[in-house]
């Protein structure tokens, strides 16, 4: 998430006079090298390994791994989950950010803390909550069984767990943005006679669109990549309740390295794509 000093501040610091002495340039070089080495060891090496292993037996084997019906089912399940979770969390995130940025109410700080909760809680616990609530021995377990509704070890459970883990992303992206932008434009629209809906779609939404898109992309990446919480509620039923990350694990444990890394490479591509879109958005926002 966007943090640390702003680009403008960094540029300003860089442009201050007296910064280009010999010692400072040595130190600068040392730090850049250190960061790059660190990145190489932790990021680039695994990235290359993923693609190298996936393609180790050639392109044919690589593409064949996607013909497996279980793999196709896993991809489909992941897409369905994301298709439900991301829009829901977008609506929730906008609503929560709107409430927090524009109004004063009791319990506001508690709401902010609660929104951050999924980030603080271990994903495994997040999954376990739903097992405890809706599992066979859970609070609603018996009732659900009587009515023949399955939540845990089925699609609803996966969606709930994913939703829980990913709901902070949109809201957290929008709250500081909306707070910083203030209310003046909305107030101007209202005095000009616009109603709430028109103000939202013609004034607020265009104002926050880039931040919103950024939040949605992050939310989507996390929703597709979530392992811990989903692992607890899914039950690992092949072809039925395994999402892509879970499927990677199953294939790996069966020593199907090409298959495992082929699916992993899809997730990696998603991550790379997310980063590219994120950079594009940041570039757009600046101009």
């Amino acid at each position: 998430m966007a943090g640390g000093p702003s680009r403008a501040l960094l540029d300003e610091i860089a442009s201050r006079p007296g910064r280009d002495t010999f010692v400072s340039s040595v130190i600068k070089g040392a730090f850049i090298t250190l960061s790059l080495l660190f990145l190489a060891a932790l990021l680039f090496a695994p990235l290359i390994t993923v693609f190298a292993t996936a393609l180790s037996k050639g392109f044919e084997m690589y593409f064949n791994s996607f013909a497996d019906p279980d793999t196709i089912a896993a991809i489909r399940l992941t897409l369905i989950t994301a298709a439900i979770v991301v829009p829901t969390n977008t609506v929730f995130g906008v609503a929560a950010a709107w409430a927090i940025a524009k109004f004063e109410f009791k319990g506001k700080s508690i709401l902010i803390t609660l929104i951050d909760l999924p980030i603080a809680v271990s994903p495994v616990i997040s999954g376990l909550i739903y097992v405890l609530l809706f599992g066979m021995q859970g609070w609603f377990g018996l009732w659900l069984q009587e009515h023949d509704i399955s939540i845990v070890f089925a699609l609803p459970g996966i969606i709930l767990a994913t939703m829980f883990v990913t709901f902070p992303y949109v809201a957290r992206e929008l709250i500081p943005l909306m707070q910083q932008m203030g209310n003046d434009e909305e107030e101007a629209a209202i005095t000009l006679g616009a109603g709430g809906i028109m103000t939202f779609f013609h004034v607020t939404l265009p104002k926050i669109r880039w931040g919103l898109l950024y939040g949605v992309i992050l939310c989507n990446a996390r929703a597709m990549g979530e392992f811990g919480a989903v692992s607890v509620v899914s039950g690992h039923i092949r072809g039925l309740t395994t999402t892509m990350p879970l499927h990677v694990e199953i294939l790996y444990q069966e020593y199907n390295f090409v298959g495992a890394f082929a699916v992993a490479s899809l997730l990696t591509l998603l991550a790379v794509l997310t980063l590219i879109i994120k950079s594009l958005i940041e570039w757009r926002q600046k101009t």
Partner: protein
Amino acid sequence: MSITLDQVTKRYQGSPVVNDVSVDVGEGEFFVLLGPSGSGKSTLLRAIAGLTGVDHGRIALHGRDVTHISARQRGVGLVFQNYALFRHMTVGDNIEFALRVRRMKAADRLARRKELLRLVALEGMDDRLPTQLSGGQQQRVAVARALAHKPQVLLLDEPFGALDAKIREELRRTIRQVQRELNITTVLVTHDQEEAFALADRIGVMNLGRLLECGKPDELYARPATRFVATFLGAANLLLARQTAQGIRFGATPVNIRALEKIDGTREHEVVAVLRPEEIELAPTRDNLRVNYMGLGVVEEMVFTGALERLRVRLTNGAAEAQITPPGDAAASTAMLEVTRTQHEQRTFPVTLGQSVALGVRRIHVLPTPLSSYTVCATQKAAAERLASHPFLTELASRMKTRIATRTEPALAEGTDAETPISGVAVVTPGVDTAKQIEWLLRNGAAEVLVLPEQLLPPQRVLIHWANDAARRPTLAVAASLLRHVSAEAVYVGILPEGASDTQRPVGMRTLLDARSEAQAMHGLEMRTELRFGSAAEELRRQLNDAPDQMLILGISDLADLHQNFAALFSTPPPFALMVVYRPAGSSGANER
């Protein structure tokens, strides 16, 4: 009337940010709300626009009550300090926004857009984005946008705040022109008095949530009624003076000036005199002065500002002790007068730093405010000094821009009289013989007595009561003067005796209404009224015990009242602040305007 505000009050976390504001703005009038930041002027403007609700009072636009109508339906045009243009829309789309909301046809919209762009001198800028415009241009677009739907009223919230001086002036002229051309009722909020003078048909000065004074710029400048307006509108020297039947006296120096307002009453009393820097003349000696002599001084500071020369002159005799020094302001602890001189005056009598000069004054304005200065009285010096540094008192004095003197009076509350009369408001701490002390102080020259408990926070509510009709006017004048500097609610408590017959009730009600309208008309004081039954002193005491942080302003015209009718107030040392206003019957006109 185009805009009518009636007792508009807005509270924020309990304390009023807009306090009982009533004003009428006429058709096509350019009204400027002027005040320092935090005076509530922007909140008031937002209340007129409907963006902020009010807790009390009524707002009407062109006779239509809009108090409970949403901002959307009020049809006003509002311009913000930071423009608030829709940043993703072009200039043209920004201007047409209000028209699109109203589903106007595209051709009509275009025609209106062209007309508005011509009005604000931005022809051909239709397709620019706000970020491609300078600050001044953006604000022009904002004005055009606010006028698009032909609002009845144009509201501007510090529209020039973010612009530099040159552009500010240019835009100021544009807005004045647009306003004249459309003859649209306009309210502008600013903290810049120069801006207010340049634009306003009428100025309303706000401070601490209250609308202190309204008037034409030149009248407000020449004849302010309050210290705040006197010093906020341009520079002013405030001096304490004695007003006598013969005229004004600074210390021992009488100033025989003809330009004085009518002097009321015969009783000599302390007043606050306003001397504008440009009304003071310098000359090498007293005999060279062409105007009334007021003292001698030494030039301490000279600043050249182009057209004018600003000087600070230390008074060495004459009016020296008349200088008002707000407490805690060490730099101003010596009597300094601000003087400005034109180039012409500089050439006729050039001065240098440290030069001795004679000072004369062309025009003195005496403030009609009754509370001139505070004199803390106690039997011991230490007690007097402790009371003089009371937070509420020092706050009050610094807001009123007046001084706190201390006096040790061993004779306080004993039989003997003071050697020299006490001037202004006497201040004492409550004790067992408070009633006696008050009486003694009032007999020895004090016009008012303030009883101030040591642990007292600034009051939230001020109760006003007078013993009889003779005390009404002076009490209202004192209450108005005090409440301009305290952000508290004013409540007049009318009290009828227990068992008052039904025939008396309408009379009681009428007294309340009369009091309210008099307070508003004569003193610009908005107050609420309550009618109670029972013994006056007990009823007041009960109300004051109800909640902490209250204050009572009590008007009497007979010293015996303190012991006869209000003894119950003093049965124990009062834990609330108490201001006793005393004008002996027959001379109550002394402090009127």
